[in-house]
């Protein structure tokens, strides 16, 4: 393996990715936010700062209040799926059974109150940090600011209408889409928590943690004037979906007891087996027949944030009941009769075969595992391609009630 490793290492070690020309400006904006300063380089690099004038007017607008749980859009619960025939019993036990939280869907998110900063950058070289200085003033009471305003022509930012909306799921690690609403053409940059920078009229971002996060939309107009709009978004905690599986097998049992146990929390739990809903609650007991099954746990918390955990489980130890889905009575020794195997592990059973077309029972037994295709014991035979269904009900040696079934196709080849 050493040579393979060395080859890969030699190839990748010196690899240099293409330069992104916009990367520095994004980083610089983040650094401005993180350090709270616009570093001007007063150091050995002997920078000459160009004079720049900026006036800021801070406008505060109260927008709609923070969202609450009741405001979240309703979500349609999973419709009742038919329980797979392999699952004959399920019991749920949890003190959260009665609580049913509803998962969020993508919705228009209420944002916190907005703070708008209109920046009338008069410098035609605005944007280069070495040449720009920012002078922030809160409110419009400053005489200096008023004088400046009367002396200089109005910039686009002063009259522009700027706002943004957010749409998505208000939970950690879920993407939220932000859309700028502007009545003027502008270059838009987004900053999330002062760290993540994205460009464009709309941007997606997934907040990694719950809490209040700052979103900043910076609209830069054609005359270099800017509007910076800050709003907070509340993000709720993402629940954990995790569970353990325990099996209690006996080789005499057709079905295997499987206990599914979710990591305890105050969340609501929903369980699915092979894609079908099977129950709710922190723990769930099901009985499964042999084979590979996919268990899925969905947890939903009070805020409507949901998480999913899917895991395949293989049940191997129980004895198995098997029946083919087709037979032919052409005397070739292969599937000449339809037969269920594994019935020796049942204390008692009842087998019923129904003709699909007429929905009439054509064969019924509690002793024989084989059907030769005769209709109600007469000389009548099925026609080629005719469809039947079988249903087996019984009790295995462990006392499990069994119900299993499936289709049968009559498909004889030429004699």
């Amino acid at each position: 393996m050493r040579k393979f490793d060395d080859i890969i290492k030699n190839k990748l070690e010196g690899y240099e990715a293409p330069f992104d020309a916009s990367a520095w400006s994004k980083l610089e904006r983040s650094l401005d936010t993180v350090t709270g300063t616009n570093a001007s380089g007063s150091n050995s690099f002997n920078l000459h700062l160009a004079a720049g004038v900026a006036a800021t007017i801070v406008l505060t607008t109260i927008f709609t209040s923070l969202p609450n749980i009741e405001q979240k859009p309703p979500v349609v619960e999973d419709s009742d799926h038919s329980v797979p025939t392999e699952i004959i019993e399920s019991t749920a036990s949890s003190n959260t059974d009665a609580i049913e939280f509803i998962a969020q869907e993508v919705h228009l998110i209420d944002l916190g109150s907005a703070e708008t900063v209109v920046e009338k950058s008069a410098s035609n070289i605005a944007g280069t940090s070495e040449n720009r200085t920012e002078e922030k003033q809160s409110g419009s009471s400053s005489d200096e600011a008023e004088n400046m305003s009367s002396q200089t022509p109005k910039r686009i930012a002063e009259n522009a209408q700027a706002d943004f909306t957010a749409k998505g799921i208000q939970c950690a690690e879920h993407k939220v889409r932000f859309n700028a609403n502007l009545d003027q053409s502008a270059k838009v940059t987004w900053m999330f928590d002062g760290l993540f920078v994205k460009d464009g009229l709309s941007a997606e971002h997934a907040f990694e943690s719950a809490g209040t996060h700052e979103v900043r939309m910076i609209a830069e107009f054609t005359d270099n004037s800017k509007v910076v709009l800050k709003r907070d978004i509340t993000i709720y905690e993402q629940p954990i979906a995790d569970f353990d599986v325990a099996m209690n097998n006996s080789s005499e049992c057709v079905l295997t007891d499987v206990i599914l146990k979710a990591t305890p929390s105050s969340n609501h739990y929903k369980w699915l087996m092979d894609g079908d809903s099977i129950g709710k609650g922190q723990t769930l007991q099901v009985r499964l027949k042999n084979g590979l099954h996919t268990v899925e746990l969905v947890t939903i918390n009070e805020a409507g944030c949901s998480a999913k955990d899917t895991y395949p489980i293989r049940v191997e130890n129980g004895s198995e009941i098997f029946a083919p889905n087709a037979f032919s009575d052409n005397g070739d020794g292969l599937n000449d009769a339809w037969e269920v195997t594994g019935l020796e592990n049942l204390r008692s059973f009842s087998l019923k075969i129904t003709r699909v077309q007429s929905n009439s029972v054509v064969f019924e037994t509690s002793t024989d595992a084989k059907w030769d295709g005769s209709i109600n014991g007469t000389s009548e035979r099925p026609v080629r391609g005719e469809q039947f269904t079988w249903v087996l009900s019984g009790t295995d040696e462990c006392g499990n009630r069994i119900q299993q079934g499936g289709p049968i196709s009559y498909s004889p080849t030429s004699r």
Partner: protein
Amino acid sequence: MGLWHPHEEMQLVEGCKNGSRVAQQEVFKALYRRLLGVCMRYADDEDEAKDILQNGFIKMFKSIENYKGDGSFEGWIKRIVINTAIDNYRRKKVKPVVVDTDLTDRLGDNMEDELEDESIYEQIPVKVVLDSVQKLSPAYKAVFNLYVLEGYNHNEIAEMLEISVGTSKSNLSKARLNLRKMLKPLVDKISQE
């Protein structure tokens, strides 16, 4: 010899410590392509790599007071960027990968048979190798990078990624196999030429 002359490097470090944008930009420009190349190995795609690198640079500039000149400046920055990539991996909350062990074993057997052809991998373009590394699952990718590229041992990797030593070894083995599997069609093509 590093990227900069020692005197120049000292000035850059001092400039960064003083918050000079010019010094920061100089460091950024000099290291951006190389460090983005590192981040791309840990990320699923270029966008994620750029986010990792940006966070790495922010962390580095914020903590530059801690750089005392022990070891190369470039190496110190690279370690911060790799740690940022590891933090990013941890945040992903990676679920265990369900592996068809039979398939992996069979694949492993086949691959072992082909060891004599390893030099063919030298002819594969670097971008193809990088794309294949990016396609590895996050858990495999992290271990592969830390072991093969950065030279950490399994004990160190286990501690960094909060996994067992056995898992680290197993993930490395599976990463190699998956990488070989992804590169195999091209290897076969090159062999036939």
